[in-house]
C-alpha cells in the first residue's frame, strides 16, 4: 500500500502509560480522580443559567443540574440545621458554577496543544489515516464524527463516566462499575471499528 502511514506515538507505550498513571495518582492525592465528561454538562448548565428566561428555568429545575430544595417537610428541615427552611433552594454545587474539574479540563486542552506544538506535530487535518484507508472522504468523517460525538457523551453520562472517569479512575479505585463498563466499551468499540474501518493501512512500527 502506498497511502499515508499511521505514525508512531511520540513516546514509547510504557513511558506514556507511566506518565498518565502518575498524573492520575497525583490528581487523586491533591483533590480527586480525573474525569472529563461531566464538564460538558457543567458548561451547558452554566450557559443555560446565563441565558436566562426559559433556559435558566429548565436548568434550575432539572433533577440533575437544578438547584436543590433544602427540605420538603418541616420535620426534615428541623432535623437538618437551624438555618434550613422548607422549600428554600440552594445553588447546585457541582453544576451551578465552573469549578476545579472544569479548570482541569481547560488545562488539559492547553497541555495537549503545547505537547502537539513542542513535539513538532501540530497540524491542521480533517480526517485520519484509518478513515482514508477505507476509501472514505473528509465530509463523511465530519458527519460520522458529529454523530459519534453525540453517542460518546450521551453514553458517558448514562454510565457515570467516560474513559477517564470510569475506565482509568474506576479501575484505580477498584470500583465495581469499572468491570461491566470496560466490557461494554471495548465490545461495542471493536464492533463499530470493524464496521467503519474495514481496510487496514500501513502502520509504522
Amino acid at each position, binding site marked *: 500500500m502506498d497511502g499515508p502511514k499511521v505514525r508512531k506515538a511520540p513516546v514509547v507505550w510504557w513511558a506514556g502509560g507511566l506518565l498518565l*498513571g502518575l498524573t492520575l495518582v497525583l490528581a487523586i492525592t491533591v483533590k480527586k480522580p480525573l474525569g472529563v465528561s461531566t464538564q460538558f454538562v457543567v458548561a451547558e448548565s452554566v*450557559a443555560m443559567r446565563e441565558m436566562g428566561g426559559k433556559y435558566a428555568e429548565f436548568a434550575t429545575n432539572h433533577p440533575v443540574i437544578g438547584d436543590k430544595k433544602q427540605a420538603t417537610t418541616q420535620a426534615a428541615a428541623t432535623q437538618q440545621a437551624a438555618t434550613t427552611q422548607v422549600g428554600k433552594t440552594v445553588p447546585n454545587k457541582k453544576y451551578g458554577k465552573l469549578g476545579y474539574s472544569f479548570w482541569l479540563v481547560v488545562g488539559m486542552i492547553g497541555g495537549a496543544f503545547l505537547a502537539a506544538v513542542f513535539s513538532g506535530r501540530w497540524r491542521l487535518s480533517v480526517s485520519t489515516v484509518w478513515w482514508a484507508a477505507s476509501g472514505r472522504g473528509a465530509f463523511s468523517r465530519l458527519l460520522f464524527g458529529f454523530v459519534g460525538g453525540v453517542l460518546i457523551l450521551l453514553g458517558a453520562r448514562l454510565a457515570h463516566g467516560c474513559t477517564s472517569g470510569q475506565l482509568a479512575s474506576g479501575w484505580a479505585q477498584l470500583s*465495581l462499575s469499572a468491570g461491566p463498563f470496560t466490557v461494554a466499551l471495548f465490545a461495542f468499540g471493536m464492533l463499530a471499528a470493524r464496521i467503519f474501518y474495514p481496510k487496514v493501512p500501513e502502520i509504522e512500527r
Partner: protein
Amino acid sequence: MYVAAIDFGTLDVATLALPLSIGGLFGAALYLSGLADPDKIIGTLRLKDFHAMRTIAVFVLVGMAGTWVLGLTGQANLDVKPLTLLTVLAGGALLGLGFGMTGYCPGTGLACAAAGRFDALITVVGMFGGALVYLLIYPYVVPAMEGVADYGKARMPETFGVDAQWLVLGIVGVGTLLLWITKPRKKAADELAA
C-alpha cells in the same frame, strides 16, 4: 453581554494553578502517549496495533498501584461511581460505538481538537449535543433505568470478599507479566539496519 455575568467560581491564581497544571500534565500525557491519536485507538480496537492498548494497560496498572499506596497513608481522595448495571452497560455500549466510529473519547476529543484535528472539533460539537440529549431525556428515562440492578457505590474488595492489597497485587502482577511476555520486539531487519 451574557458572558460578563458568567459565574466563574473563585478566579484567583491559587485556585486555578492546581487544576490548570494537573490538567495540563494530563493533556500533554494524553498527546505524547498516543492515546490522543484516533489512528492509534482504531488500530487497537481493530487488534492491528497494540500501542494504545498497552499504554492504557500501564495507565490503569500504575494508577491502581499508586492509588493503593496512597490509601495506605490515608491520602487517597476517592470518588467511587455507583454501579447501576443497566445504565453502565447501555452507556458503555453507546460510548463504545462512538469511540469505535471516531477514535475519540471525551478527553482525547478535546485534546485532538487542540492538536489541530478539525474532525475532532466536530466530534466535540457532537458531544455538547449528546450532553444536551442526556439532560433532555433524563427525567423520562434515566431514573427508571438506574433503578434496575442498582448496586450502589460498590467496590471490588467488599463485593468479592478479597482484601484490596491482594486484588491490586494480583491484577498488577498478572498485568505486568502479560505486558512483559507480549512485549513488542524489534524485527531482526531493524537490528541489522541499526
